[in-house]
């Protein structure tokens, strides 16, 4: 039995590599956008053309090196995607769910992060562009990055339905319901296409400061749940040998421990 388990651990190297690459990728992505390029938290949408020129000048090397790194490593976003696609294939649902998820996010990479990298690289490379044009690049960059909404909306809903009807116990149902919360933040972000200032703008109290933590919570949750899934996976096709983590079970035990 132990030997069997050891064999399985070696057999899971593809899954574990994918998981570690996923963690590294999200880490790198955060470091580049928040620390290196300083393109997150996003710039102010109400900057006038001259101010956008100054914004680019202020971040010159950070943007070029940071987005250069994304140009090298951005394709590794597909690893998280592949792992999630595998998790859906492992469910008792039609493969259509898995492939829909894969295609949605694979193609979304172009408007989702290529556009901002291209637009901002162009903006930095040409400090002598007319300021109005620089502002156009600034808008294209942020709005395409924030506003690629449909993918996350439909993708979250696809994943949600798959989790809720799955009978193999791949991911816990509470994460399915959390996917609905995540999908709804994509509805909330829509007004950032309309407002240049205020709470709903893409840097606003709701548009950024509520939405991004929710997305962050969701991302951390699925990264941890995928780790748990890889541990439990027997690489078979039926129900997993162990059920997914039950949030109320843990809470219940904790409460009982306190009560005792």
């Amino acid at each position, binding site marked *: 039995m132990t030997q069997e388990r050891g064999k399985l651990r070696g057999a899971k190297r593809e899954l574990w590599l994918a998981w570690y690459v996923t963690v590294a990728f999200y880490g790198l992505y955060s470091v580049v956008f928040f620390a290196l390029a300083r393109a997150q938290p996003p710039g102010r949408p109400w900057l006038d053309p001259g101010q956008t020129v100054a914004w680019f000048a202020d971040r010159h090397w950070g943007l070029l090196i940071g987005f250069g790194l994304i140009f090298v490593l951005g394709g590794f976003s597909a690893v998280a995607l592949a792992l999630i696609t595998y998790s859906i294939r492992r469910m008792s649902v039609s493969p259509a769910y898995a492939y829909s998820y894969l295609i949605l996010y694979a193609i979304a990479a172009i408007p989702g992060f290529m556009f901002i990298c291209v637009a901002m690289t162009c903006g930095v490379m040409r400090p002598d562009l007319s300021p109005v044009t620089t502002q156009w690049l600034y808008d294209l960059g942020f709005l395409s990055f924030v506003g690629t909404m449909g993918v996350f909306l439909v993708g979250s809903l696809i994943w949600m339905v798959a989790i809720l009807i799955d009978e193999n116990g791949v991911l*816990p*149902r*509470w994460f*399915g*319901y*959390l996917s*609905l*919360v995540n999908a*709804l*933040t994509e*509805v*909330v972000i829509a*007004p950032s296409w*309309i*407002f240049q200032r*205020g*709470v*709903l703008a893409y840097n606003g*109290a*709701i548009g950024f400061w*509520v939405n991004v933590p*929710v997305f962050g919570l969701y991302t951390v949750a699925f990264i941890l749940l995928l780790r748990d899934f890889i541990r439990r996976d027997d690489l078979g096709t039926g129900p997993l040998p162990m059920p997914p983590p039950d*949030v*109320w079970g843990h809470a219940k035990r904790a409460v009982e421990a306190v009560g005792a």
Partner: protein
Amino acid sequence: MTAVDGLADDAAVGGDDAARRFPGDPDMWIFVVVESLVFTSYFCIYLYARTQHEQAFLAAQSALTMWVGILETILLLTSSWAIARCVQCTRAGSYAAARQFAFVTAGLGAAFFALKIAEWVHLIRDGYSFGSSDFMQHFFFLTGIHAAHLVIGFVALGVLVYELSDPRRRSHKTIETCSTYWHTVDLFWVVIFAMLYVVR
């Protein structure tokens, strides 16, 4: 089926926690809690903004009609009552009655939605829109995102009726989960109503 498939009465269970169970899918309550916290953050942002610009908010708020909000609230509260009755009938095995209550719920929800749309149209005709003032921005945002939840609520009602329609299905857990979602939409409205129509 057994009569005590449903929830044990308070008197019957007494202090025995093990005899109690979650209404519907326990995990659904994670949605209720997290989404409530997300809404709480929207409300806090709104309340803070209005305390900082009190007069502007009051001036814009006067465009709303109190009784419309009251009527909408009563419609949704009644729909909540109807779906709670639907769940009770399901537990009692009266599936025909349960279905009727589900349709009453859908009807009341649709009436709420129609009234909401009429209210929006009326406001827009009067020159108030998403971008016309800070208050209206919050108003259209909060009522809009609530309407999005309501639309999903109709999907949940659809699932519920689908479950009730066929004797081979009728999963009480699924029915209770759908009803929990519907109540959540009602809950959010109760607070949104107080925030937008009553808070001064």
